[in-house]
């Protein structure tokens, strides 16, 4: 059952709406939902001051779907710590979307600001637009970033994506900014567009598949040969089954992959980067 939130007008000062989660909505009437707390600056406000609330609420988290409409760029922390249910956002949305998410599904038709999916440990996020910096990253001083879940971005992603990533899966259709997968220690990433500079710096474990062009890699990564690699097909097939639109052209099973391992500045150097040799012969030497 769906609860529809329509933003009345863009707030002049950003609001923190970490109360917009299916868990907080489940078992409440629309009137009770309207009284949930959101913060605007130092003021504690009610959700109904900012949103028109219609639709029908559900008793359980699993049955709860929240649809949010409007220019939400000044609304932060939607779905923070979300544990089950669905959120659909029609438009662009502000920082910390789905941060520390445990389970459930978030879809966004527009773009998201920084720290989307930060430190998430489960669930699924699908973003049709672009994502800002620190997508699925760890917060400052935190040893672990993303710990699980699946994230699909149809647009481009900013800098330091997947910082400290430990587990989980990220697929990006567009380009990825600088220093992606810094200090990564597990999980897998597919980048269909161009991979930015300094990828995987200080990474110790994990896998990154670069389907597009890679202009440079850190000097502390070593070339580990080019060949057909059967298992890459597993990841490509998985992506194709979930989001066929992410792959511009078919990647043949006989595709040659250049493998790089690192980061050799670290004591443990088990990070693997796979790039398509046909696009990146300049790296393999």
């Amino acid at each position, binding site marked *: 059952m769906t609860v529809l939130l329509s933003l009345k007008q863009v707030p*002049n*000062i*950003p609001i923190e709406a970490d109360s917009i989660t299916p868990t907080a909505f489940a078992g409440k009437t629309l009137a009770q939902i309207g009284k949930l707390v959101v*913060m*605007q*600056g*130092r*003021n504690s406000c009610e959700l109904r001051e900012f949103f028109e609330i219609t639709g029908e609420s559900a008793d359980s988290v699993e049955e709860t779907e929240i649809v949010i409409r409007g220019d939400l760029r000044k609304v932060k922390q939607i779905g923070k710590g979300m544990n089950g249910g669905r959120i659909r956002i029609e438009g662009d949305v502000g*920082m910390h979307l789905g941060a520390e998410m445990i389970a459930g599904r978030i879809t966004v038709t527009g773009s998201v600001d*920084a720290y989307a999916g930060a430190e998430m440990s489960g669930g699924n996020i699908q973003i049709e637009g672009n994502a800002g*910096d*620190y997508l699925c990253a760890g*917060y*400052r*001083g935190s040893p672990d970033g993303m710990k699980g879940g699946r994230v699909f971005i149809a647009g481009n992603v900013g800098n*330091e994506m997947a910082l400290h990533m430990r587990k989980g899966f990220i697929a990006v259709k567009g380009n990825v900014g*600088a*220093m992606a997968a*810094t*200090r990564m220690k597990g999980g897998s990433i597919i980048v269909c567009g161009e991979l930015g500079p*300094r990828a995987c*710096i*200080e990474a110790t474990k994990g896998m990154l598949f670069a389907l597009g062009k890679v202009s440079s890699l*850190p*000097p*502390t990564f*070593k*070339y580990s040969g080019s060949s057909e690699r059967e298992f890459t097909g597993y990841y490509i097939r998985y992506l194709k089954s979930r989001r066929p639109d992410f792959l511009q052209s078919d990647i043949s099973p006989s595709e040659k992959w250049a493998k790089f391992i690192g*980061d*050799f*500045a670290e*004591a443990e150097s088990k990070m693997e980067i796979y790039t398509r040799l046909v696009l990146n012969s300049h790296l393999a*030497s």
Partner: protein
Amino acid sequence: MTEAGNTFKDVVCTFCGCLCDDIIIETEGEKITKNTNGCAISKERFVGHMENRCLQPTVKGSAVTLEKAIERAVEIIASSKRFLIYGLSSTENDAQREAYRLAELAGGVVDNTTSVCHGPTILGAQESGETTASLAETRHRADIVIYWGANPAAAHPRHIPHYIRQPGEYIKDPKKDRQIWLIDVRETTTARMVDRFIKINPATDLEVIETLRALIRGTKLDVVEVGGISIKDLEQIATTMKTAKYGVLFFGLGLTQSFGRHRNIDAAIRLIQDLNAYTKWGLMPMRGHYNVSGANKTSTWVTGYPYAIDFARGYPRFSPGEYTAVDMLARGEPDVLLNIAADPVAHFPRAAVAYLAKIPVINIDPKFNMTSQLAEVNIPAAIAGIECDGAATRMDGLPLYLKKVIEPPEGVIPDRDILRMIIKSLEKVMK
């Protein structure tokens, strides 16, 4: 501490993070006449302390009494939803403490100038910890000192002559027993003062540091050259660093504000940590404003975080990039700015300044600056370390007592007292 007539010995200079504490100040009546031992900047700071002074509180450009200015400031703060305090690096520790109290009381955000200088240093330290040294330790023990992306000849004029090219307990001849290196993208004035200058290509600091780390581990890499330095030279640099008895790496904004920022610092810290498996190394940021290091310390003591702290929910939260002044202003978040001991209008990016022009600004500063042109309320303050006492923290974390050498202009009070007056009135209004 000897004070003979109008001569003050061992005065701490309050310009840069060196906090040189051997300055001799002579005064005559209300004037400072002489500064001995200070660098050119220090001389100007003390002797020219009355230049360009703001002496009168103003509201919307018209002169008012201090009480009226405070009253207006309190009105503005009380009616705000998202209050921002910025600055604090050129004032003393007690004023900083009052600023945190004000932020907590008003449920606002407090940020210091760290967010535009050595913020990345702190983020790096939060990732990897710190391996630090003191300046005295450096002078007594270091047989190798490396400056990376810093130009002390211009920004910290006495850093090399006062702390580094000085004999110490174990370094008898600082010219012979101590090597000073400079790593930078261009040959600065400092390059002429050091024993070895290593030029690297711009925006390759991170690559060079990571390569050094790999070489120190003894790994053979595929590359033949990194950042314009051949791998052979890098191997030699790594060996020298590994075989030093005691090394210290000083780094400046060339490392913290170039491509990579906190990643550069994180890597530099880990380089030093790696080196400590073989010998003793420390690293230290070349802090700019005299008490920006103190701003981080006091903030961490009081709130648990070094900068970019939000009190909106009644407890401190930390998020650089979100609660940092530049980002907040560029995103159009705050509805009031209280600026103290800094000049955001002169230093912030255009988008941030453009927004600043739309909101009321309260400016507390001893001198006229670009922010005072824009501020609705201007409150003059006494200069800490000259006209009032206090404490400040040197770049290595050592707190030093600042002396008062001369009376402030009439009616002008220290930053901490201005903030206390604001807090006192605000407490009544917010009840």
